[in-house]
Protein backbone atom coordinates (compact mmCIF):
# COMPACT_ATOMS: atom_id res chain seq x y z
CA UNK A 1 0.00 0.00 0.00
CA UNK A 2 1.14 3.51 -0.79
CA UNK A 3 1.98 5.57 2.30
CA UNK A 4 -1.04 7.52 3.51
CA UNK A 5 -0.12 11.06 4.52
CA UNK A 6 -3.04 13.37 3.74
CA UNK A 7 -6.81 13.19 3.87
CA UNK A 8 -6.78 12.83 0.08
CA UNK A 9 -4.44 9.83 0.32
CA UNK A 10 -6.72 8.31 2.94
CA UNK A 11 -9.86 8.72 0.81
CA UNK A 12 -8.11 7.27 -2.24
CA UNK A 13 -6.89 4.29 -0.21
CA UNK A 14 -10.45 3.55 0.93
CA UNK A 15 -11.73 3.73 -2.65
CA UNK A 16 -9.05 1.27 -3.73
CA UNK A 17 -9.65 -1.03 -0.75
CA UNK A 18 -13.19 -1.89 -1.81
CA UNK A 19 -14.30 -3.58 1.42
CA UNK A 20 -17.67 -5.35 1.29
CA UNK A 21 -20.01 -3.11 3.32
CA UNK A 22 -23.79 -3.21 3.66
CA UNK A 23 -26.12 -0.47 4.88
CA UNK A 24 -29.89 -0.93 5.19
CA UNK A 25 -29.68 -4.19 3.26
CA UNK A 26 -27.81 -2.67 0.33
CA UNK A 27 -24.15 -3.05 -0.71
CA UNK A 28 -22.32 0.29 -0.63
CA UNK A 29 -19.77 0.32 -3.44
CA UNK A 30 -17.92 3.52 -2.45
CA UNK A 31 -18.24 4.68 1.14
CA UNK A 32 -16.16 7.80 0.45
CA UNK A 33 -19.05 9.29 -1.53
CA UNK A 34 -21.93 7.97 0.59
CA UNK A 35 -23.43 10.49 3.05
CA UNK A 36 -23.94 7.85 5.75
CA UNK A 37 -20.18 7.30 5.92
CA UNK A 38 -18.64 10.66 4.98
CA UNK A 39 -18.84 12.27 8.46
CA UNK A 40 -17.10 9.29 10.08
CA UNK A 41 -14.43 9.26 7.37
CA UNK A 42 -13.90 13.00 7.89
CA UNK A 43 -13.40 12.42 11.62
CA UNK A 44 -10.86 9.63 11.09
CA UNK A 45 -9.12 11.73 8.42
CA UNK A 46 -8.34 14.30 11.13
CA UNK A 47 -5.77 11.85 12.51
CA UNK A 48 -3.89 12.28 9.22
CA UNK A 49 -4.50 16.00 8.77
CA UNK A 50 -3.29 17.01 12.23
CA UNK A 51 -0.01 15.14 11.74
CA UNK A 52 0.75 17.50 8.85
CA UNK A 53 -0.12 20.70 10.72
CA UNK A 54 2.71 22.50 12.58
CA UNK A 55 0.34 23.50 15.40
CA UNK A 56 -0.41 19.87 16.25
CA UNK A 57 2.49 17.78 14.97
CA UNK A 58 4.09 17.59 18.43
CA UNK A 59 1.14 15.51 19.61
CA UNK A 60 0.05 13.93 16.35
CA UNK A 61 3.44 12.46 15.44
CA UNK A 62 6.13 10.49 17.29
CA UNK A 63 9.51 8.94 16.57
CA UNK A 64 9.36 5.19 15.96
CA UNK A 65 11.45 3.13 18.36
CA UNK A 66 11.77 0.56 15.56
CA UNK A 67 13.05 2.74 12.71
CA UNK A 68 13.89 6.14 14.22
CA UNK A 69 11.58 7.73 11.67
CA UNK A 70 8.85 10.25 12.42
CA UNK A 71 5.50 8.46 12.25
CA UNK A 72 1.85 9.15 12.91
CA UNK A 73 1.36 8.78 16.67
CA UNK A 74 -1.60 6.47 16.06
CA UNK A 75 0.94 3.85 14.92
CA UNK A 76 3.36 4.36 17.83
CA UNK A 77 4.25 2.01 20.67
CA UNK A 78 4.38 4.08 23.88
CA UNK A 79 7.99 4.43 25.02
CA UNK A 80 7.56 6.59 28.13
CA UNK A 81 5.11 8.13 30.55
CA UNK A 82 5.36 11.25 28.41
CA UNK A 83 4.10 9.23 25.43
CA UNK A 84 1.14 8.03 27.50
CA UNK A 85 0.26 11.60 28.46
CA UNK A 86 0.68 12.84 24.89
CA UNK A 87 -1.75 10.16 23.77
CA UNK A 88 -4.45 11.63 26.04
CA UNK A 89 -3.62 15.19 25.00
CA UNK A 90 -3.86 14.19 21.34
CA UNK A 91 -7.29 12.65 21.86
CA UNK A 92 -8.56 15.82 23.51
CA UNK A 93 -7.17 17.90 20.66
CA UNK A 94 -8.86 15.81 17.95
CA UNK A 95 -12.14 15.81 19.88
CA UNK A 96 -11.94 19.62 19.82
CA UNK A 97 -11.62 19.46 16.04
CA UNK A 98 -14.39 16.91 15.41
CA UNK A 99 -16.80 17.00 18.36
CA UNK A 100 -17.11 13.32 17.67
CA UNK A 101 -15.29 9.98 17.75
CA UNK A 102 -12.35 9.70 15.35
CA UNK A 103 -12.11 5.92 15.79
CA UNK A 104 -8.41 5.33 15.31
CA UNK A 105 -7.51 4.81 18.97
CA UNK A 106 -9.03 1.31 18.96
CA UNK A 107 -6.46 -0.09 16.57
CA UNK A 108 -3.70 1.84 18.33
CA UNK A 109 -4.58 0.22 21.64
CA UNK A 110 -4.81 -3.19 20.00
CA UNK A 111 -1.30 -2.75 18.61
CA UNK A 112 0.16 -1.73 21.96
CA UNK A 113 -1.57 -4.57 23.83
CA UNK A 114 -0.40 -7.08 21.23
CA UNK A 115 3.15 -5.74 21.30
CA UNK A 116 3.41 -6.17 25.09
CA UNK A 117 1.71 -9.54 25.24
CA UNK A 118 3.40 -11.28 22.31
CA UNK A 119 6.75 -10.52 23.98
CA UNK A 120 5.65 -12.40 27.08
CA UNK A 121 4.09 -15.30 25.15
CA UNK A 122 7.41 -15.78 23.35
CA UNK A 123 9.32 -15.69 26.66
CA UNK A 124 7.19 -18.51 28.03
CA UNK A 125 6.63 -20.66 24.94
CA UNK A 126 9.64 -19.92 22.73
CA UNK A 127 7.31 -18.83 19.92
CA UNK A 128 8.15 -16.05 17.48
CA UNK A 129 4.97 -14.00 17.61
CA UNK A 130 6.69 -10.81 18.79
CA UNK A 131 9.20 -10.76 15.92
CA UNK A 132 6.34 -11.40 13.50
CA UNK A 133 4.32 -8.60 15.03
CA UNK A 134 7.24 -6.19 14.81
CA UNK A 135 7.47 -6.83 11.06
CA UNK A 136 3.74 -6.14 10.76
CA UNK A 137 4.08 -3.02 12.92
CA UNK A 138 6.87 -1.69 10.71
CA UNK A 139 4.48 -1.96 7.78
CA UNK A 140 1.73 -0.14 9.68
CA UNK A 141 4.14 2.64 10.59
CA UNK A 142 5.55 2.96 7.08
CA UNK A 143 2.22 2.85 5.26
CA UNK A 144 0.26 4.63 8.01
CA UNK A 145 -2.88 2.63 7.43
CA UNK A 146 -5.84 2.55 9.81
CA UNK A 147 -6.32 -0.50 11.92
CA UNK A 148 -9.48 -1.44 13.78
CA UNK A 149 -9.03 -3.36 17.01
CA UNK A 150 -11.35 -6.36 16.88
CA UNK A 151 -12.10 -7.60 20.37
CA UNK A 152 -15.83 -7.98 21.02
CA UNK A 153 -17.35 -11.26 19.86
CA UNK A 154 -21.15 -11.57 19.69
CA UNK A 155 -20.88 -14.10 22.60
CA UNK A 156 -24.28 -15.77 22.22
CA UNK A 157 -25.30 -17.33 25.52
CA UNK A 158 -23.23 -15.37 28.07
CA UNK A 159 -23.54 -18.16 30.61
CA UNK A 160 -21.56 -20.55 28.41
CA UNK A 161 -17.84 -20.51 27.50
CA UNK A 162 -16.85 -20.32 23.81
CA UNK A 163 -16.39 -24.04 23.22
CA UNK A 164 -19.83 -24.84 24.69
CA UNK A 165 -21.87 -22.46 22.52
CA UNK A 166 -24.46 -24.18 20.35
CA UNK A 167 -23.13 -22.16 17.42
CA UNK A 168 -19.35 -21.96 17.82
CA UNK A 169 -19.18 -19.02 15.40
CA UNK A 170 -20.56 -16.75 18.12
CA UNK A 171 -16.92 -16.52 19.19
CA UNK A 172 -14.37 -16.00 16.40
CA UNK A 173 -12.33 -19.16 16.06
CA UNK A 174 -10.03 -21.24 13.92
CA UNK A 175 -11.76 -23.86 11.77
CA UNK A 176 -8.75 -25.07 9.78
CA UNK A 177 -4.96 -25.07 10.01
CA UNK A 178 -2.62 -25.85 7.09
CA UNK A 179 0.96 -25.18 5.95
CA UNK A 180 0.07 -21.76 4.63
CA UNK A 181 -1.99 -20.47 7.52
CA UNK A 182 -5.37 -20.73 9.19
CA UNK A 183 -9.02 -20.31 8.27
CA UNK A 184 -11.31 -18.53 10.73
CA UNK A 185 -15.04 -18.10 11.17
CA UNK A 186 -17.04 -15.82 13.44
CA UNK A 187 -17.74 -12.11 13.84
CA UNK A 188 -16.69 -9.02 15.77
CA UNK A 189 -19.44 -6.67 16.95
CA UNK A 190 -19.50 -2.88 17.55
CA UNK A 191 -16.39 -2.32 15.42
CA UNK A 192 -15.81 1.41 15.65
CA UNK A 193 -14.40 2.77 12.40
CA UNK A 194 -14.49 -0.69 10.81
CA UNK A 195 -16.04 0.56 7.57
CA UNK A 196 -13.25 3.07 6.98
CA UNK A 197 -10.31 1.06 8.32
CA UNK A 198 -7.90 -0.90 6.16
CA UNK A 199 -7.22 -3.89 8.39
CA UNK A 200 -8.48 -5.48 11.60
CA UNK A 201 -6.30 -6.79 14.42
CA UNK A 202 -8.33 -9.63 15.92
CA UNK A 203 -8.01 -10.35 19.64
CA UNK A 204 -9.80 -12.75 21.95
CA UNK A 205 -12.87 -11.27 23.59
CA UNK A 206 -12.32 -12.59 27.13
CA UNK A 207 -10.13 -14.82 29.27
CA UNK A 208 -10.02 -18.34 27.85
CA UNK A 209 -9.59 -21.85 29.26
CA UNK A 210 -7.32 -24.51 27.67
CA UNK A 211 -10.35 -26.11 25.98
CA UNK A 212 -11.05 -22.75 24.28
CA UNK A 213 -7.65 -22.78 22.53
CA UNK A 214 -9.15 -22.38 19.04
CA UNK A 215 -10.72 -19.12 20.21
CA UNK A 216 -7.48 -17.72 21.70
CA UNK A 217 -6.46 -15.94 18.52
CA UNK A 218 -4.62 -12.74 17.65
CA UNK A 219 -4.25 -12.09 13.92
CA UNK A 220 -4.36 -9.30 11.35
CA UNK A 221 -6.77 -9.42 8.43
CA UNK A 222 -7.15 -6.94 5.55
CA UNK A 223 -10.76 -5.81 5.51
CA UNK A 224 -11.02 -6.52 1.79
CA UNK A 225 -10.01 -10.17 2.26
CA UNK A 226 -12.38 -12.74 0.71
CA UNK A 227 -15.07 -13.72 3.20
CA UNK A 228 -15.01 -10.48 5.21
CA UNK A 229 -18.41 -8.72 5.19
CA UNK A 230 -19.31 -5.61 7.18
CA UNK A 231 -22.81 -4.52 8.16
CA UNK A 232 -23.07 -0.89 9.23
CA UNK A 233 -25.03 -0.17 12.41
CA UNK A 234 -27.84 2.35 12.76
CA UNK A 235 -27.56 5.41 14.97
CA UNK A 236 -30.01 7.86 16.49
CA UNK A 237 -31.30 10.28 13.79
CA UNK A 238 -28.94 8.73 11.24
CA UNK A 239 -31.20 9.57 8.29
CA UNK A 240 -30.38 13.22 8.92
CA UNK A 241 -26.89 12.44 7.61
CA UNK A 242 -28.43 11.64 4.24
CA UNK A 243 -29.69 15.18 3.75
CA UNK A 244 -26.83 16.88 5.58
CA UNK A 245 -27.14 20.47 6.69
CA UNK A 246 -28.02 21.82 10.11
CA UNK A 247 -30.47 19.09 11.10
CA UNK A 248 -27.54 16.64 11.19
CA UNK A 249 -26.22 18.67 14.14
CA UNK A 250 -22.55 18.01 13.40
CA UNK A 251 -22.80 17.59 9.63
CA UNK A 252 -19.08 17.33 8.93
CA UNK A 253 -18.14 14.82 11.64
CA UNK A 254 -21.31 12.98 12.60
CA UNK A 255 -22.25 11.25 15.81
CA UNK A 256 -19.76 8.98 17.61
CA UNK A 257 -17.80 6.43 15.65
CA UNK A 258 -19.90 4.57 13.11
CA UNK A 259 -19.83 0.89 14.00
CA UNK A 260 -20.02 -2.28 11.94
CA UNK A 261 -20.65 -5.94 12.58
CA UNK A 262 -17.70 -7.59 10.85
CA UNK A 263 -18.35 -11.15 9.70
CA UNK A 264 -15.54 -13.60 8.93
CA UNK A 265 -16.99 -16.32 6.72
CA UNK A 266 -14.14 -18.83 6.31
CA UNK A 267 -11.40 -16.22 6.00
CA UNK A 268 -7.85 -17.36 5.29
CA UNK A 269 -5.00 -15.79 7.30
CA UNK A 270 -1.35 -16.59 6.43
CA UNK A 271 0.91 -17.56 9.33
CA UNK A 272 2.94 -14.34 9.16
CA UNK A 273 -0.22 -12.50 10.25
CA UNK A 274 -0.94 -14.76 13.23
CA UNK A 275 0.37 -13.36 16.52
CA UNK A 276 -1.18 -15.76 19.01
CA UNK A 277 -2.99 -19.03 18.58
CA UNK A 278 -3.87 -21.39 21.36
CA UNK A 279 -1.89 -19.83 24.24
CA UNK A 280 -5.16 -19.48 26.10
CA UNK A 281 -3.56 -18.46 29.40
CA UNK A 282 -2.53 -15.15 27.79
CA UNK A 283 -6.00 -14.27 26.48
CA UNK A 284 -7.08 -12.67 29.76
CA UNK A 285 -3.88 -10.64 30.02
CA UNK A 286 -4.26 -9.36 26.47
CA UNK A 287 -7.89 -8.40 27.06
CA UNK A 288 -7.00 -6.62 30.29
CA UNK A 289 -4.22 -4.68 28.58
CA UNK A 290 -6.34 -3.66 25.62
CA UNK A 291 -9.14 -2.64 27.97
CA UNK A 292 -6.81 -0.58 30.17
CA UNK A 293 -5.22 1.17 27.19
CA UNK A 294 -8.66 1.91 25.77
CA UNK A 295 -10.16 3.05 29.08
CA UNK A 296 -7.18 5.39 29.48
CA UNK A 297 -8.45 7.28 26.42
CA UNK A 298 -11.92 8.20 27.48
CA UNK A 299 -11.14 11.22 29.62
CA UNK A 300 -9.18 12.59 26.67
CA UNK A 301 -11.72 12.18 23.89
CA UNK A 302 -14.88 12.51 25.99
CA UNK A 303 -13.30 15.36 27.93
CA UNK A 304 -12.62 17.10 24.62
CA UNK A 305 -16.10 16.41 23.28
CA UNK A 306 -17.51 17.76 26.55
CA UNK A 307 -15.51 20.97 26.05
CA UNK A 308 -17.42 21.47 22.79
CA UNK A 309 -20.70 20.80 24.55
CA UNK A 310 -19.93 23.34 27.28
CA UNK A 311 -19.12 25.89 24.58
CA UNK A 312 -22.30 25.05 22.67
CA UNK A 313 -24.43 25.47 25.78
CA UNK A 314 -22.76 28.77 26.63
CA UNK A 315 -23.50 30.03 23.11
CA UNK A 316 -27.10 28.79 23.20
CA UNK A 317 -27.78 30.55 26.49
CA UNK A 318 -26.21 33.76 25.18
CA UNK A 319 -28.43 33.57 22.10
CA UNK A 320 -31.51 32.94 24.23
CA UNK A 321 -30.77 35.60 26.83
CA UNK A 322 -30.40 33.21 29.75
CA UNK A 323 -26.58 33.28 30.03
CA UNK A 324 -26.55 35.65 33.01
CA UNK A 325 -28.98 33.62 35.09
CA UNK A 326 -27.15 32.32 38.16
CA UNK A 327 -28.45 28.76 37.73
CA UNK A 328 -27.17 28.67 34.14
CA UNK A 329 -23.71 29.84 35.22
CA UNK A 330 -23.74 27.23 37.97
CA UNK A 331 -24.69 24.47 35.52
CA UNK A 332 -22.03 25.46 33.01
CA UNK A 333 -19.49 25.45 35.86
CA UNK A 334 -20.64 21.98 36.86
CA UNK A 335 -20.31 20.73 33.28
CA UNK A 336 -16.77 22.11 33.16
CA UNK A 337 -15.95 20.45 36.47
CA UNK A 338 -17.19 17.08 35.22
CA UNK A 339 -15.32 17.37 31.91
CA UNK A 340 -12.05 18.30 33.61
CA UNK A 341 -12.55 15.47 36.12
CA UNK A 342 -12.70 13.04 33.21
CA UNK A 343 -9.55 14.51 31.71
CA UNK A 344 -7.78 14.39 35.08
CA UNK A 345 -8.39 10.66 35.30
CA UNK A 346 -6.84 10.02 31.91
CA UNK A 347 -3.81 12.16 32.72
CA UNK A 348 -3.44 10.49 36.12
CA UNK A 349 -3.47 6.91 34.84
CA UNK A 350 -0.93 7.94 32.22
CA UNK A 351 1.33 9.73 34.71
CA UNK A 352 1.30 6.62 36.92
CA UNK A 353 2.07 4.35 33.96
CA UNK A 354 4.89 1.85 34.01
CA UNK A 355 7.24 -0.05 31.74
CA UNK A 356 6.33 -3.60 30.71
CA UNK A 357 8.99 -6.24 30.07
CA UNK A 358 8.60 -5.60 26.34
CA UNK A 359 9.77 -2.01 26.91
CA UNK A 360 6.38 -0.54 26.01
CA UNK A 361 4.67 1.67 28.59
CA UNK A 362 1.30 0.88 30.09
CA UNK A 363 -1.13 3.11 32.04
CA UNK A 364 -2.06 2.40 35.64
CA UNK A 365 -4.92 -0.08 35.19
CA UNK A 366 -6.88 0.79 38.34
CA UNK A 367 -6.90 4.51 37.52
CA UNK A 368 -7.70 3.83 33.85
CA UNK A 369 -10.72 1.76 34.86
CA UNK A 370 -11.90 4.48 37.26
CA UNK A 371 -11.58 7.02 34.44
CA UNK A 372 -13.79 5.02 32.08
CA UNK A 373 -16.24 4.29 34.88
CA UNK A 374 -16.58 8.04 35.49
CA UNK A 375 -17.31 8.47 31.78
CA UNK A 376 -20.29 6.12 32.11
CA UNK A 377 -21.72 8.55 34.67
CA UNK A 378 -20.39 12.04 33.98
CA UNK A 379 -21.23 12.11 30.26
CA UNK A 380 -24.87 11.39 31.13
CA UNK A 381 -24.83 14.15 33.74
CA UNK A 382 -23.14 16.58 31.35
CA UNK A 383 -25.81 15.74 28.74
CA UNK A 384 -28.57 16.16 31.34
CA UNK A 385 -27.26 19.62 32.24
CA UNK A 386 -26.97 20.48 28.54
CA UNK A 387 -30.63 19.54 28.02
CA UNK A 388 -31.54 21.59 31.09
CA UNK A 389 -29.85 24.84 30.01
CA UNK A 390 -30.64 24.50 26.29
CA UNK A 391 -34.37 24.20 26.94
CA UNK A 392 -37.21 22.08 25.59
CA UNK A 393 -36.81 23.63 22.16
CA UNK A 394 -34.02 21.08 21.70
CA UNK A 395 -36.67 18.40 21.26
CA UNK A 396 -39.36 20.31 19.38
CA UNK A 397 -37.56 22.61 16.97
CA UNK A 398 -38.69 22.82 13.32
CA UNK A 399 -36.43 21.52 10.57
CA UNK A 400 -34.03 23.33 8.26
CA UNK A 401 -36.50 22.78 5.43
CA UNK A 402 -39.16 24.61 7.46
CA UNK A 403 -36.67 27.40 8.10
CA UNK A 404 -36.10 27.76 4.37
CA UNK A 405 -39.71 27.17 3.32
CA UNK A 406 -41.35 30.01 1.37
CA UNK A 407 -44.62 29.21 3.15
CA UNK A 408 -43.59 28.86 6.80
CA UNK A 409 -39.95 30.05 6.88
CA UNK A 410 -41.04 33.49 8.02
CA UNK A 411 -42.87 32.02 10.99
CA UNK A 412 -39.87 29.88 11.93
CA UNK A 413 -37.53 32.90 11.83
CA UNK A 414 -40.01 35.04 13.77
CA UNK A 415 -40.62 32.51 16.52
CA UNK A 416 -37.10 31.10 16.75
CA UNK A 417 -35.79 34.58 17.51
CA UNK A 418 -33.80 35.06 20.68
CA UNK A 419 -31.67 38.00 21.77
CA UNK A 420 -31.81 40.95 19.39
CA UNK A 421 -29.16 40.64 16.70
CA UNK A 422 -28.84 36.86 16.94
CA UNK A 423 -29.89 35.07 13.78
CA UNK A 424 -32.57 32.41 14.36
CA UNK A 425 -30.62 30.15 12.00
CA UNK A 426 -27.50 30.32 14.19
CA UNK A 427 -29.57 29.60 17.28
CA UNK A 428 -31.03 26.55 15.55
CA UNK A 429 -27.56 25.40 14.45
CA UNK A 430 -26.14 25.43 17.97
CA UNK A 431 -29.21 23.70 19.39
CA UNK A 432 -28.95 20.98 16.75
CA UNK A 433 -25.29 20.46 17.68
CA UNK A 434 -26.29 20.01 21.33
CA UNK A 435 -29.03 17.59 20.31
CA UNK A 436 -26.54 15.59 18.23
CA UNK A 437 -23.95 15.36 20.99
CA UNK A 438 -26.40 14.34 23.72
CA UNK A 439 -28.72 12.00 21.87
CA UNK A 440 -29.13 8.25 22.31
CA UNK A 441 -26.17 6.71 20.50
CA UNK A 442 -23.69 9.24 21.93
CA UNK A 443 -24.73 8.33 25.46
CA UNK A 444 -24.80 4.57 24.95
CA UNK A 445 -21.29 4.75 23.51
CA UNK A 446 -20.13 6.41 26.72
CA UNK A 447 -21.73 3.64 28.73
CA UNK A 448 -20.47 0.60 26.82
CA UNK A 449 -17.52 1.72 24.69
CA UNK A 450 -14.26 0.24 26.07
CA UNK A 451 -16.35 -2.05 28.24
CA UNK A 452 -19.54 -1.77 30.24
CA UNK A 453 -19.40 -0.40 33.82
CA UNK A 454 -19.53 -3.85 35.34
CA UNK A 455 -16.24 -4.76 33.63
CA UNK A 456 -14.63 -1.82 35.40
CA UNK A 457 -16.09 -2.87 38.76
CA UNK A 458 -14.65 -6.35 38.32
CA UNK A 459 -11.23 -4.73 38.01
CA UNK A 460 -11.66 -2.87 41.31
CA UNK A 461 -12.02 -6.18 43.09
CA UNK A 462 -8.78 -7.39 41.55
CA UNK A 463 -6.72 -4.21 41.69
CA UNK A 464 -8.21 -2.33 44.64
CA UNK A 465 -5.75 -3.69 47.26
CA UNK A 466 -8.56 -4.43 49.69
CA UNK A 467 -6.30 -6.49 52.00
CA UNK A 468 -3.97 -3.54 52.45
CA UNK A 469 -6.90 -1.24 53.11
CA UNK A 470 -8.18 -3.60 55.81
CA UNK A 471 -4.74 -3.72 57.39
CA UNK A 472 -4.46 0.07 57.45
CA UNK A 473 -7.89 0.40 59.03
CA UNK A 474 -7.17 -2.31 61.58
CA UNK A 475 -3.90 -0.65 62.55
CA UNK A 476 -5.56 2.71 63.18
CA UNK A 477 -8.35 1.06 65.14
CA UNK A 478 -5.83 -0.69 67.34
CA UNK A 479 -6.89 -4.17 66.24
CA UNK A 480 -4.15 -6.73 66.89
Amino acid at each position, binding site marked *: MKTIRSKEDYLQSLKELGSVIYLNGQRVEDITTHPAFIPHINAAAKTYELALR*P*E*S*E*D*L*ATAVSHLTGKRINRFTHIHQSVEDL*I*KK*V*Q*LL*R*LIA*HETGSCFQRCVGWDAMNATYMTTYEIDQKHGTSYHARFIEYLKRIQAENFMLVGGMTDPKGDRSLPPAQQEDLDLFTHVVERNDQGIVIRGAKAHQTGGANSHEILLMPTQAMRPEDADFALVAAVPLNAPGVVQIFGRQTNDERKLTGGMDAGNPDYGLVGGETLIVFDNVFIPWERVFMLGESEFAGLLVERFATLHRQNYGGCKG*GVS*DILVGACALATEMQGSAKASHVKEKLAEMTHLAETLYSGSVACSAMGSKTVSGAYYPDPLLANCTKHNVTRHIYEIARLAHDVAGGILATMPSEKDLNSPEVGGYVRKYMAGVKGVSPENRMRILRLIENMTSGTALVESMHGAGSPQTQKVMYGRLGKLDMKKKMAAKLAGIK
Partner: protein
Amino acid sequence: MRVALKFCGGCDPGYERGEYWQAIARAAGPEIEWARLEDQGCQAVLLICGCDTACVEDDMPPGLRLVCLRNDRLPPRVVVDILLQRE
Protein backbone atom coordinates in the same frame (compact mmCIF):
# COMPACT_ATOMS: atom_id res chain seq x y z
CA MET B 1 17.42 36.71 11.38
CA ARG B 2 16.51 33.05 11.07
CA VAL B 3 14.09 31.82 13.76
CA ALA B 4 12.84 28.27 14.25
CA LEU B 5 9.11 28.12 14.86
CA LYS B 6 7.71 25.42 17.09
CA PHE B 7 4.21 24.91 18.47
CA CYS B 8 3.23 22.75 21.42
CA GLY B 9 0.76 20.03 20.45
CA GLY B 10 -2.27 22.13 21.36
CA CYS B 11 -4.28 19.73 23.54
CA ASP B 12 -6.37 22.52 25.13
CA PRO B 13 -4.98 25.90 24.11
CA GLY B 14 -6.33 29.11 25.62
CA TYR B 15 -6.01 31.08 22.38
CA GLU B 16 -5.61 30.59 18.62
CA ARG B 17 -1.90 29.83 18.40
CA GLY B 18 -1.79 29.76 14.59
CA GLU B 19 -3.48 33.13 14.26
CA TYR B 20 -1.15 34.63 16.88
CA TRP B 21 1.90 33.41 14.98
CA GLN B 22 0.53 34.84 11.73
CA ALA B 23 0.19 38.22 13.45
CA ILE B 24 3.78 37.94 14.72
CA ALA B 25 4.99 37.00 11.23
CA ARG B 26 3.18 39.98 9.75
CA ALA B 27 4.75 42.25 12.36
CA ALA B 28 8.20 40.83 11.64
CA GLY B 29 7.95 41.13 7.87
CA PRO B 30 11.26 40.37 6.15
CA GLU B 31 13.28 40.91 9.35
CA ILE B 32 12.70 37.29 10.37
CA GLU B 33 13.13 34.23 8.19
CA TRP B 34 11.02 31.43 9.65
CA ALA B 35 12.35 27.89 9.71
CA ARG B 36 11.53 24.54 11.27
CA LEU B 37 13.22 23.32 14.42
CA GLU B 38 15.19 20.69 12.54
CA ASP B 39 16.55 23.27 10.05
CA GLN B 40 20.13 24.52 10.34
CA GLY B 41 21.33 28.05 10.91
CA CYS B 42 18.71 29.36 13.31
CA GLN B 43 19.63 31.94 15.94
CA ALA B 44 16.53 31.53 18.09
CA VAL B 45 13.45 29.40 18.66
CA LEU B 46 9.98 30.85 19.00
CA LEU B 47 7.95 28.30 20.94
CA ILE B 48 4.22 28.99 20.95
CA CYS B 49 2.49 27.07 23.74
CA GLY B 50 -1.24 26.98 24.38
CA CYS B 51 -1.09 27.21 28.18
CA ASP B 52 1.19 27.79 31.16
CA THR B 53 2.27 24.15 31.28
CA ALA B 54 4.36 24.66 28.13
CA CYS B 55 5.01 20.93 28.11
CA VAL B 56 7.50 20.90 25.23
CA GLU B 57 9.70 23.66 26.64
CA ASP B 58 12.20 21.21 28.14
CA ASP B 59 12.60 19.47 24.77
CA MET B 60 14.02 22.50 23.00
CA PRO B 61 17.64 22.36 21.75
CA PRO B 62 20.01 23.86 24.33
CA GLY B 63 22.19 25.85 21.92
CA LEU B 64 19.49 28.20 20.71
CA ARG B 65 17.98 31.22 22.41
CA LEU B 66 14.45 30.28 23.39
CA VAL B 67 11.47 32.63 23.40
CA CYS B 68 8.53 30.74 24.88
CA LEU B 69 5.02 32.19 24.67
CA ARG B 70 2.27 30.77 26.90
CA ASN B 71 -0.51 33.20 25.97
CA ASP B 72 -1.22 35.92 23.41
CA ARG B 73 -0.95 38.87 25.78
CA LEU B 74 2.18 40.36 24.25
CA PRO B 75 1.55 42.53 21.20
CA PRO B 76 3.07 40.83 18.13
CA ARG B 77 5.49 43.74 17.59
CA VAL B 78 6.86 43.24 21.11
CA VAL B 79 7.43 39.55 20.42
CA VAL B 80 9.38 40.49 17.30
CA ASP B 81 11.48 42.96 19.30
CA ILE B 82 12.26 40.26 21.86
CA LEU B 83 13.28 37.85 19.11
CA LEU B 84 15.48 40.49 17.52
CA GLN B 85 16.82 41.43 20.99
CA ARG B 86 15.68 45.02 20.60
CA GLU B 87 13.83 45.14 23.90
